């Protein structure tokens, strides 16, 4: 039996959208079979890539300014260039399909509905880095996706796009699907590698365990997000210059913004990087807030990104008319949704998960929900995170149940401040940033509970 997901119809694109990754999905009646994929130009980019020198592909990815779409936003070409093509060691590529950052839901659609796009990008990446064994790590909460991708790999193998002598080029590559088992931490790249080695997924410390040096089985390894690998195909298809032009300098191509929460049209929107401001994204692309509601808060890049408060003003540096950098005050709604602009206002574009909250939401409640998430998902390797995430969750839960004490906001801050920077992996930051930023941006709500001014 062939695995299929239930039919999915992409809504008509917003005029600001430019669908590259989700181009195929926008075709009426598109299905994940290889015949449909081939009918729409599938595997042509792979054939083109196989005529190029591997180093030319790495250079093209560098020139495209593609940044990782998993959350950390590391330049993809730079990551690839750490792998020395002919160092005599085996190399591996592991695709990170452990999509589980709250607020993020883009890879789900690629894996379920356009798996060949991922496979094509992956074979190109393998060819460019002299890799003959790849794994696609898919979280087990996507059971249908795992079947669909397996099936797609079989189809691609039968047509000679995967396996021995890809398209007659003499290049061999094997791809396997590996399923996770319900742990968020496996989205962290070194943790994912431990998981793939069959161990408890405790993240490895960097240095020395950079995947590019000591990755899977202690060999040079590239770990890339599903969406990132898909972009590779389009860099080859369009050429790096054309591709880079779609984005902003240093953040090339399109970005999929996943919008959830209190907007009229939640969903994922593929936009050229930096094409919209936060205000345009909420009020134009997503149809605004629910009737009668006012904006209160936005988490712009997955739950770990620091929260933004409606009405906040930021001083940023912009190029003035005379070419000098000048200070300019902007409202939070005018922040451009790209990596550098969000970093300039103290948060991050992360995995592109935008969570919008209107004035009906209580911030302590929202933070408590996230704290419970992090307390559940901390792997327990490092004491500050294992204990701290649990205590933050206990404190916010207690505050909501009417048991707050005056010192709670200070205590929360102190716990959070003692996690970030003191752990092996970035989960420490991820779990303390929400608490730190909610406390800084909405102190009055915490104070009200702590001092008993709110029933």
């Amino acid at each position, binding site marked *: 039996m062939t695995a299929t997901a*239930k039919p999915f119809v992409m809504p008509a694109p917003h005029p600001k959208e430019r669908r590259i990754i989700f181009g195929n999905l926008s075709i009426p009646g598109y299905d994940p079979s290889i015949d449909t994929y081939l009918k729409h130009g599938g595997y042509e980019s792979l054939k083109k890539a196989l005529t190029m020198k591997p180093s030319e592909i790495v250079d093209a990815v560098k020139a495209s300014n593609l940044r990782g779409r998993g959350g950390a936003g590391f330049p993809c070409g730079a990551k690839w260039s750490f792998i020395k093509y002919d160092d005599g060691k*085996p190399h591996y590529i592991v695709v990170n399909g452990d*999509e*589980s*950052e*709250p*607020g*993020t*839901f883009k*890879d*789900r659609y690629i894996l379920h509905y356009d798996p060949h796009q991922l496979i094509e990008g992956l074979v190109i990446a393998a060819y460019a880095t002299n890799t003959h*064994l790849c794994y696609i790590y898919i*979280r*087990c*909460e*996507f*059971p*249908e996706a795992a079947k669909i991708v397996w099936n797609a790999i079989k189809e691609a193998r039968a047509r000679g796009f995967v396996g021995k002598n890809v398209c007659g080029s003499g290049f061999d590559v094997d791809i*396997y699907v*590996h*399923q*996770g*088992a*319900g*742990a*968020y931490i496996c989205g962290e790249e070194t943790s994912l590698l431990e*998981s*793939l*080695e*069959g*161990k*408890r*997924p405790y993240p490895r410390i960097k240095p020395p365990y950079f995947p590019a040096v000591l990755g899977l*089985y202690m060999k040079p390894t590239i770990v890339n997000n599903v969406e990132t690998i898909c972009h590779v195909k389009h860099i080859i298809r369009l050429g790096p210059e054309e591709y880079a032009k779609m984005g902003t300098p240093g953040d090339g191509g399109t970005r999929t913004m*996943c*919008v*959830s*929460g*209190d907007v009229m049209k*939640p*969903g*994922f929107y593929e936009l050229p990087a930096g094409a919209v401001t936060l205000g345009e994204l909420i009020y134009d692309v997503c149809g605004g807030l629910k009737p009668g509601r006012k904006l209160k808060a936005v988490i712009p890049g997955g*739950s770990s990104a620091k929260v933004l408060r409606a009405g906040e003003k930021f001083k940023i540096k912009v190029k003035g008319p005379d070419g000098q950098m000048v200070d300019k005050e902007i409202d939070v709604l005018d922040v451009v949704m790209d990596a550098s602009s969000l970093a300039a206002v103290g948060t991050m574009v992360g995995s592109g*998960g935008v*969570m919008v*909250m209107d004035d009906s*939401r209580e911030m302590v409640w*929202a933070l408590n*929900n*996230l704290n*419970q*998430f992090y307390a*559940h*998902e901390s*792997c327990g390797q490092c004491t500050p995170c294992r204990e701290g995430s649990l205590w933050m969750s206990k404190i916010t839960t207690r505050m909501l149940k009417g048991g707050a004490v005056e010192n709670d906001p200070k205590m929360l801050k102190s716990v959070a401040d003692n996690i970030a920077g003191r752990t092996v992996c970035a989960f420490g930051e991820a779990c303390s940033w929400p608490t730190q930023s909610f406390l800084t941006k909405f102190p009055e709500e915490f104070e009200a509970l702590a001092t008993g001014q709110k029933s």
Partner: protein
Amino acid sequence: MTVTADPTATTERQADKVTPEIEAEIDEIISHYPVSKRSASLPLLHYWQNHFGYVDDSGIEWIAAKLELQPINILELVTFYPWFRRQAAGKTIIRVCRTLACAMAGSYEVREKFCKAVGLDPHEEHHGFGCAPPTTKDGKFSVEFVECLASCGSAPVALINDTLYENITPESVPGIVEKLK
């Protein structure tokens, strides 16, 4: 010292039910990991749990022996990863997403409705990793909260066995359960 046998204890061992066909499928899975057999431990646990419903002591020992590991190397995975359990769960497992976007869209109420619709006490606690989620006495349904299912745009969602249900309203829950019965 004599130990009184637990009358409810079963002497059945899952490992005794491994047929040559099962072993052939397991060998095929192991072949996906040419560099290190140990990498197959998660896939084998998935295979075992899908086949037998949960993983018992004999399963842990069997998988460990198969992969030339110690049983603790497998047990430590079962106790870490939330997906694996050492007790049978319901035939239909309803996993409701608990995290922020779904919670904002009403997933707490949705979970309660699911519990009520299948006949479970919504206040019954999940006893943690390794245990089966709260399960109806007839063994038909389990209901549990899980963390983000990565479908925040169509919140609230629930993963029911292998199928994702989206935009669930509290009103739609009894109808969903009725179809699953």
